[in-house]
């Protein structure tokens, strides 16, 4: 009897484990099927390097270069803001802050991760967007810059928590060795702690990027959604995710536009897959030490 229970439970656990793999494979397969059909009809080079996205013109134009530029610009902008602040916060929490402040800060950062992206988008829309418009004296505050700032908030919890983990797991004897050689606290942090924690910090940044690249709601609300290649970060852009979310409802199932959106999904999937893969690579590296 006990053996039977064992076998049953093992089977249930096995099915649960295999289910998630099946789902991923199915999603990928579905994306691939629809996306690939589009590549065959429209041409993959024309799709990726095309400068105009205009599905309702005649002939319809499905060039996603503006969307790739939009996503990249917003992501890079968010990283430029979130990485230094995030890593410094992680350093402060793990190395400098007294225990009380450390606990408060840690829970606040974790709380930040729990804010729904639509709320971040909404708050950004009514506070940041007008501020950017007035402060930089530009026609609209719905820009890649505003999107970067709001997305930086969303990437920060990931960057802080995972970097903090990496920094805290730097063995004490490295620090002790540095202190014993007459290094100050900051020298120890800069030359030893950061170096030892670097694989983990890079993984944290990569996971942060993964979060930002896939983010939809907030960017849709803040970046202005103009599908053109911007001249600067102070112009509206449209990201890949926002395009899919905004246009999926208007398409006819099975037509070119519909398939094009799947093709964008496929491109996005490949990008996030690569980013996550790099993150995993570095996470593995930081654990092996």
């Amino acid at each position, binding site marked *: 009897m006990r053996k039977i229970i064992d076998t049953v439970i093992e089977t249930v656990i096995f099915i649960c484990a295999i289910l998630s793999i099946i789902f991923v494979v199915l999603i990928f397969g579905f994306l691939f099927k629809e996306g690939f059909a589009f590549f065959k009809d429209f041409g993959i080079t024309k799709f990726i390097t095309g400068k105009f996205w205009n599905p309702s013109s005649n002939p319809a134009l499905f060039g996603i270069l503006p969307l790739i530029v939009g996503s990249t610009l917003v992501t890079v902008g968010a990283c430029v803001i979130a990485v230094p602040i995030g890593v410094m916060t992680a350093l402060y929490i793990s190395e400098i802050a007294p225990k009380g402040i450390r606990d408060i800060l840690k829970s606040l950062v974790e709380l930040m991760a729990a804010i729904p992206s639509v709320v971040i988008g909404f708050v950004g829309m009514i506070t940041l967007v007008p501020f950017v418009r007035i402060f930089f004296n530009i026609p609209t505050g719905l820009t890649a810059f505003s999107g970067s700032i709001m997305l930086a908030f969303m990437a920060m919890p990931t960057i802080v928590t995972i970097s903090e983990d990496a920094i805290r797991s730097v063995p004490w004897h490295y620090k002790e*060795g*540095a202190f*014993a*050689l*007459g290094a100050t606290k900051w020298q120890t942090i800069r*030359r*030893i702690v950061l170096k030892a924690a670097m694989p983990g910090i890079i993984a944290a940044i990569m996971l942060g990027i993964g979060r930002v690249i896939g983010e939809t709601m907030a960017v849709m609300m803040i970046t202005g959604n103009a599908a053109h290649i911007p001249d600067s970060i102070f112009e509206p852009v449209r990201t890949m995710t926002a395009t899919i979310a905004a246009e999926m409802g208007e398409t006819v199932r099975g037509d070119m536009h519909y398939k094009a959106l799947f093709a964008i999904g496929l491109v996005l999937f490949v990008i996030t897959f690569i980013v996550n893969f790099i993150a995993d690579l570095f996470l593995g590296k930081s654990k092996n030490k």
Partner: protein
Amino acid sequence: MSKISVKNFNLYYTNFHALKNININIKEKRITAMIGPSGCGKSTLLRSINRINDTIEGAHTSGEINISGKNIYDTEMDVDVLRRNVGMVFQRPNPFPISIYENVAFGLKVNRIASNKSVIDETVEKSLKAVLLWDDIKDKLRKSALDLTLERQQRLCIARVIAVAPYIILLDEPCSSLDPVATRRIEELMIQLKDEYTIVMVTHNMQQAARISYDTAFMLLGELIEFEKTEKIFTNPSRKETEDYVTGRFG
């Protein structure tokens, strides 16, 4: 002549009285060994000499430790300068996860002893030669220090200390993670180094103390029981506790 002179020194970890009124004078350019059973305070005393215990939360002290006549617990003491002059080698080899070269150069850079590359190169070479590592690894200086064997890692840690030219080297059970052959070689190295440095060593291994040290301190439960010439400690100790310990009756 005594280099390190400890006067009425007490150390507490929060409420635990770890070192009880220690008085000891350690001679210059000799190897002094500290022995005693686990938890007797020998490592704590060693770690008080470069104030690395300061990094432990809740540690506080009273009394004095004078090095070359200056009390290192004086409020005016610059701890970073102290630690540069009093090097320390730890129980487990702890090279930094950077290249061999950078490990040795680390102390020079953080203490701003040298910034000129040729001077650093020269010091790195000299330090690695002093620990008899140079010939084996001179082609691998850019490789990670973590790829070395444990013995070589420990030699590297000693080289790293020598590079900043301290007067005193503290070693906290430097051979406890090494095999007997490597232990023998590190001991030989220490014997060579004693001509230039004042060496204080904590060891668990009484034979090691007997083999290489000039003076030996025996500690028990936070107190210094006896401090004498090594030979006397091992052949004719004046205290009963010392005799019981060195003859293996406890510990």
